[in-house]
């Protein structure tokens, strides 16, 4: 009974805390400007099914794709086992699904065990890739100590959780063989039967191992759940809404600024009366100038670095890294959110996303080639943020690089980015 009560308190506390922190992230995302993504719902569901559920964009890197698939499938399916653990914990039962499911239960537990082993192996390989092989994709200026530790914490936690799950089963397997107390014969243990010989043989010691692993496993899962909102690992949840709200237009198509359209129409036609639009700044100086989708992108980023590894600017040694753009945006909006919590809604610090986080040198190095957008396995768009910030620099500050100002001047004066007379536009037709 006491065990059940403690379990209930821990579970309720963990769920409450997670809910509170997830709500904070939702609030932070909604600090962004409004944007309408209500069109083409069928296509959006299909995109989500393909890209998030089906992991279609992971296939480009087959080794990472297979390892990630193990962890992903393992995570989703082992959660069925967690459901049983929750019921057992709340009602003091033991392997509550074993009776109703009959022989299928054995198959299920056997399957979980194999998955758990695959998850464990995949996580160990991932740790080796990061810490021993030191793959280039996991390094870079933005991969400072916290992002590196974050990744390792996630992987180590998953290794420990799977190890606890398998050890628990091994103890259970041994107790079942001893026909001890309520440990009825249930499940099959294709992996943990090999761990069993390593465990003590007395029933009392085995019960302790079983219980310790059981509590460690479930408390570990609940702790991990509460780690998510502080971690890049939040992608396991946001990948789904983020792919649902994907941009469905051709990648080459940049957003149209309706606020500018009104002004241009008024300039070209003095009789044009623009609809009253809210006065906002052109482009983005801080995170609140971006759309909520840009901010959701930022919270969805799991820092895998596929974007940066294909960025032509980054490859050739420029400062720009699309992953840094996303991480900076996330860190800044988190900071803005924390400021609101601490100092109230209207508090403004002296910082902005532009300059305090993202430098102009990074922004001007972008070729707008869309390689980062194409590479992202969860359809994040760093290019939109870069463009919005360029818009701010050019239209609000008039601080474009001098050579680009020359190009603008040429376009205004003679309708071409170079200084050629419009009257000479057809000269090519004269020669052969």
């Amino acid at each position, binding site marked *: 009974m006491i065990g059940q009560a403690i379990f209930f308190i821990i579970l309720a506390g963990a769920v409450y805390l997670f809910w509170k922190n997830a709500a904070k992230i939702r609030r932070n995302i909604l600090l962004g400007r409004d944007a309408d993504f209500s069109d083409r719902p069928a296509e959006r569901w299909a995109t989500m099914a393909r890209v998030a559920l089906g992991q279609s964009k992971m296939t480009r890197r087959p080794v990472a794709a297979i390892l990630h698939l193990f962890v992903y499938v393992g995570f989703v399916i082992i959660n069925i086992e967690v459901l049983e653990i929750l019921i057992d914990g709340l009602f003091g039962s033991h392997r509550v699904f074993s009776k109703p499911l009959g022989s299928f239960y054995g198959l299920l537990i056997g399957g979980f065990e194999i998955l758990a082993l695959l998850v464990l192996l995949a996580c160990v390989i991932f740790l080796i890739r990061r810490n021993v092989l030191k793959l280039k994709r996991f390094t870079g200026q933005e991969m400072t100590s916290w992002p590196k530790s974050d990744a390792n914490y996630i992987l180590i936690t998953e290794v420990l959780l799977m190890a606890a799950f398998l050890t628990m089963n091994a103890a259970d397997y041994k107790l079942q063989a001893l026909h001890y107390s309520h440990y009825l014969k249930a499940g099959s243990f294709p992996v943990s039967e090999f761990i069993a010989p390593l465990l003590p043989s007395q029933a009392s010691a085995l019960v302790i191992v079983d219980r310790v692993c059981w509590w460690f496993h479930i408390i570990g899962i609940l702790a991990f759940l509460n780690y998510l909102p502080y971690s890049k690992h939040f992608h396991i949840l946001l990948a789904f809404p983020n792919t649902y709200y994907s941009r469905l237009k051709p990648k080459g198509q940049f957003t149209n600024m309706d606020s500018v359209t009104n002004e241009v129409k008024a300039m070209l036609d003095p009789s044009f009366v623009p609809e009253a639009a809210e006065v906002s700044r052109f482009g983005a100086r801080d995170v609140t100038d971006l759309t909520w989708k840009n901010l959701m992108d930022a919270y969805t980023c799991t820092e895998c670095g596929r974007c940066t590894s294909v960025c032509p*600017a980054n490859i050739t*040694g420029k400062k*720009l890294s699309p992953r840094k753009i996303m991480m900076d945006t996330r860190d800044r909006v988190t900071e803005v959110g924390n400021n609101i919590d601490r100092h109230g809604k209207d508090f403004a610090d002296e910082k902005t996303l532009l300059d305090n986080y993202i430098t102009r040198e990074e922004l001007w190095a972008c070729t707008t080639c869309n390689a980062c957008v194409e590479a992202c396995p969860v359809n994040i768009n760093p290019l939109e943020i870069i463009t919005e910030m360029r818009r701010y620099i050019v239209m609000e500050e008039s601080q474009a690089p001098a050579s680009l100002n020359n*190009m603008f001047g040429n376009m205004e004066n003679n309708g071409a980015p170079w200084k050629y007379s419009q009257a000479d536009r*057809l000269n090519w037709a004269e020669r052969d």
Partner: protein
Amino acid sequence: MEQKIPTMAEMAAEGKQPEILFWVGCAGSFDERAQRITRDICKILQHVGISFAVLGTEESCTGDPAKRAGNEFLFQMQAMSNIQVLDGYNIRKIVTGCPHCFNTIRNEYPALGGNYEVIHHSQLIQQLIDEGKLKAEGGENFKGRKITFHDPCYLGRGNDVYEAPRRALEILDADLVEMKRCKSNGLCCGAGGAQMFKEPEPGKRDINDERMLDVLEAKANVIASGCPFCMTMLTDGVKHMEKEQEIKVLDIAEITVRANGL
């Protein structure tokens, strides 16, 4: 040009409406290298007998580099005045010689009231090949030459056009090779996003030089492309490597013209 290039103004004066407008673009109008491609696109149009016209001095920049650089005002000014000209001539169908013009008119003009059917010249060539109107005979033989296609970002990733330009190469008796970074994974030439008009930020090397590593690895002796900016960057890249003798950079239109002896 052997045959005169008709302008919309001249056609309209004669009460004629061409089948398609050829949007030449700024590079195609002024850059000497790109002018040759412009003339070749006209040769193809004339060869198959499509009635077309150009805007000539009434054409103006689409505003693409302004938009990518963040100058939405200038972009929309350009776009709206171009739309006025295009609508004034009641134009419905446009072929462009540049992926940037193609992307901008096709995708970004509709929000400002300009709705046209827009194709890139590689798509026109593909159509003509598929219809049997264009072959690869009577001209230069590409047999045994290793050709690789460099995907322009605003044609490939930007608009998912990957097969059309390759179709123009497939009909040659040549050895087609793909670079390691191709199609949706293609590496930019370094000119997009208004980079063409500024010096690159400090770094290890220039992007076009990076691209040359892929060309060398594929052992190609012809780099085909479909974009005047890629043309400039790739040609410079070949020059930096001092490989002008071994590696030629050619537009899809030039290859088509040569293969047909036009």
